[in-house]
């Protein structure tokens, strides 16, 4: 079921192109929607899966988000990047889906049990990936928006509807939790000072 992916995702420089696509989608252009769909569907699915740990819910959320894009493209005001707008919709859909499904979060301590003997960089990445999956929902979501989607602090604040200071605090606490879990694990410690 698991597989590394080389799928590309929209880059920051693509915003002008995406704004053009959104304008065409607002006018009912299905071909433009197809292009946006191809750019965002895999990324939205992975984002939702990481957040919900549910294949079914991730599929439902990614479809719901793109349907909202199709129906509400005319409402895009253009005062944020297209990706910020789309992930703002994704955030709301995920929260709504989680409330409906009453999902549980895998606690960080369980992550230890899954892979205690990792010794390569890839295994360390997988361990970290699972550990991030075990963070509290708000911290995990913030980590995903910053590292996976690549949002600025202010954009993350806008998407999650909290002050920028709260975003910085959530990132700080997420990092400290992972640091503490890493120290307890048998994973190799990265050289200090490596950049």
């Amino acid at each position: 079921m698991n597989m590394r992916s080389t799928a590309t995702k929209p880059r920051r420089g693509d915003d002008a192109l995406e704004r053009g696509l959104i304008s065409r989608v607002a006018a009912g252009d299905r071909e433009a929607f197809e292009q946006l769909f191809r750019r965002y569907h895999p990324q939205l699915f992975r984002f939702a899966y990481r957040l919900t740990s549910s294949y079914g819910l991730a599929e439902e959320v990614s479809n719901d988000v793109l349907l909202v894009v199709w129906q509400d493209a005319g409402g895009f005001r253009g005062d944020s990047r297209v990706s910020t707008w789309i992930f703002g919709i994704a955030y709301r859909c995920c929260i709504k889906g989680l409330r409906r499904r009453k999902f549980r979060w895998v606690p960080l301590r369980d992550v230890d049990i899954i892979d205690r003997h990792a010794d390569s960089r890839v295994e360390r990445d997988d361990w970290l990936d699972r550990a991030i999956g075990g963070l509290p929902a708000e911290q995990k979501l913030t980590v995903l928006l910053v590292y996976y989607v690549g949002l600025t602090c202010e954009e993350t604040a806008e998407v999650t509807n909290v002050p920028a200071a709260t975003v910085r605090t959530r990132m700080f606490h997420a990092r400290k939790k992972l640091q503490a879990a890493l120290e307890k694990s048998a994973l190799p410690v990265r050289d200090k000072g490596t950049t």
Partner: protein
Amino acid sequence: MNKTASRMTHAVANERLPWYVNGTLDDEERVEVVAHLEVCAECREDLALCEDMARAVRSDGAVPIPPAASAEALLRHGDNRAALRRLPDWRIAAAVAVVSVTAAMALIAINRDGAPNQRFTATTEQTSLATVDYVFQLRFEGTADDAVRARTLEELGGIAQAIDPDRREYRLTLSLAPQALADLEARAAEIAARPEVAAAEIVALQMPVR
């Protein structure tokens, strides 16, 4: 620079590290962070962890392959949902009630001890959901160490949660197309047949109540 200003500089630079890593700081902020990193070992260590986190999140290593999907199919689905929204309120309420009741029936049935329940079988076969999250519970043999358990859980896929590490019990959630209880029991039997697994059973399902 006095001591207070120095501490503030450290705090500000440290909290900006995630955005230094994702490349979204403006030029002025980036220069400040780089200058601070040259003199602060703690921030260099934190930066290494931020880089590891970013790489792990971007790797998609633990994420399953997204389902095959097309924009056209989605829009057709959207048209159907729009048609549903145009139904009179009482019909929508009735549909919601039916789905809620059948989901509850399924949960009750699957949690009962004893023989397969025909009512549950009918419910899952009739649902229009693409996937349902089924929860299996399994217990490993005493000889199965951490590495064996980790490998087995990886092979089985889904989401694993340790519910009693001392007794080597785990809960495994698999997203599957809706299926009959007999098929789910067969899958549990397959899991239980593995030499490292002492017992496995289907214990619950998670179904959205719309």
